[in-house]
């Protein structure tokens, strides 16, 4: 398992990671979320021994990564799929990994098959699409059959089949008892595959919890309702729940279930065209958690600011 304790990493005057503490436990997929520049990649680089922490520690199975003699047998990671020599073939790249960690050459063919790289493994990496590079990077991570896996944005550049494949792969690893840390900006993906989430913003820990708890933390049920008399319904509900106008004819109600909203509409004599519970999304939780901690926030354009949303 991965233990990050009081980790701080400064680049010059910039605090990329600030006193970060969390664990990645076996048997679960831990999603690692945060806006761009939040320090996710930096954290993973420190865990993998690539960058030196300014303070704090990051260990895998109780040891610093650079203390492990044959690390591929214990930790597999895909950090940056573009970071490899473009002039080497995929197979040669994997053979280097096997040679340097004393892993039998037959494993190279195993993982090439496992990630579906097939005959492309004999071509040079410079001709690979981003998706193929991701697969090659994942193959290298799997080479030593490690107990701990880290993936930085593994779905980047993958097509729909690839995304489904990696989703099942990651779930499978966790089911086998491995510890899996996966960073992603695709909240819907993380919601689908992660058991836990670690959310950071500006290098600091924002949340470290089970996905279910994070979703529950958003408050009671949320109901979407459409009616031509939205203003009337809004007034009728205002005392009982939080009501948000999401469109000219649409409201979102937090704190009441569909039956209560329907009854209230009936009592107010408001005709309904749509009434349904809205599923909580991790994206929403994530946005509310990280509000104010994004480093680079775009301003709405004049057009979108003017349309009243």
């Amino acid at each position, binding site marked *: 398992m991965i233990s990050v304790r009081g980790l701080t990493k400064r680049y010059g005057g910039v605090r990329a990671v600030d006193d970060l503490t969390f664990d990645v436990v076996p048997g679960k997929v831990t999603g690692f979320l945060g806006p761009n520049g939040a320090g996710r990649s930096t954290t993973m680089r420190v865990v993998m021994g690539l960058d*030196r922490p300014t303070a704090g520690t990051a260990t895998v199975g109780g040891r610093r990564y650079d203390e492990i003699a044959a690390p591929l047998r214990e930790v597999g990671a895909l950090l940056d799929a573009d970071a490899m*020599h473009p002039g080497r073939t995929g197979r040669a790249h994997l053979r280097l990994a096997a040679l340097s960690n004393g892993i039998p050459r037959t494993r190279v063919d195993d993982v090439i098959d496992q990630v579906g790289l097939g005959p492309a493994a004999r071509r040079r990496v410079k001709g690979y699409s981003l998706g193929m590079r991701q697969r090659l990077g994942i193959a290298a991570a799997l080479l030593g059959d490690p107990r701990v896996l880290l993936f930085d944005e593994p779905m980047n550049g993958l097509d729909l089949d690839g995304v489904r494949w990696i989703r099942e792969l990651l779930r499978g690893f966790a089911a086998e008892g491995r510890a899996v840390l996966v960073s992603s900006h695709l909240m819907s993906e993380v919601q689908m595959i992660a058991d836990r989430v670690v959310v950071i913003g500006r290098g600091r820990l924002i949340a470290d919890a089970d996905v279910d708890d994070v979703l529950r933390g958003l408050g009671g049920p949320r109901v979407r309702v459409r009616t031509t008399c939205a203003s009337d319904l809004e007034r009728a509900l205002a005392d009982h729940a939080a009501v948000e106008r999401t469109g000219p004819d649409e409201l979102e109600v937090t704190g009441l279930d569909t039956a209560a909203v329907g009854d209230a509409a009936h009592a107010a004599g408001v005709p309904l065209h749509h009434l349904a519970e809205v599923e909580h999304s991790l994206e929403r939780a994530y946005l509310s958690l990280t509000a104010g901690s994004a480093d680079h926030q775009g301003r709405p354009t004049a057009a979108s600011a003017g349309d009243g949303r």
Partner: protein
Amino acid sequence: MSTVRTVSATSAVLIARTCRAEWSRLWTVRSTWVFVGVTGFVVVGFAALLGAEASGPSGPPADATAWDAGRTTTMFALFGVLALSALATTADHTTGGIVPTLQWTPRRTVLLVARTTVVAATTTAVGVVLVTAASLVVLSFVPEVGAPIGEGVETLAAAGFVLAAGAALAVGLGLVTRSTAGALVSVVGLVLVLPFLLAQLSVRHDWLVDVAAALPGSSALFLVFGEGPSDDMTTSSARTTFTLWAVAALVAGGLRLLRSDADR
């Protein structure tokens, strides 16, 4: 679950493995073959020209042996050795390949030892083979010049030292600069360009002689041809100077590899 057996690796095993990986890393990219091929073509081709001229009507120079061609072509081989060593060392840093490399070999001392050993030993060996080949090519054109064994050992030993020290210097500068262009310019400048430039200027400025004599390139010239910018140079002073340069570059490069973040 685990189908791969965990074995504990001693440092010796680790270094041996890493050396094998470095060897494979060197020869699985096309540029290595191109550099060796081009250097071989230039060295052997130049030797063939020398041989052809010596077998012409004017004949070989008096007292010439086949090893003269070896000494002359050592400087061509040196250029190839410097360039290949610099390129092989910096490729990981310019392509981002250092990220997977350090994931697979996180003990940087091990990587430093393996990389320096494999790159410098391989390029030196290639250089010595080419210099030997150049001498034999000339011998095949003009067998009468002969190739005395004693002189051959001396020539190849000098060439081997110069090529090895040059390769080590190039590896060190590659690790310091982490840039192919930076490493190439600095090592070629120190070894092949500056000594000649300073030799031109030193006619008017005496102190430049001392500067020139302290450069690794002057050591190379002295060790190969027995001539240098300063009359004070000896074989051992030239060897010491070149060794100090190589060691200093490796120490600086090693510290950069050991101490700083992987690719910043």
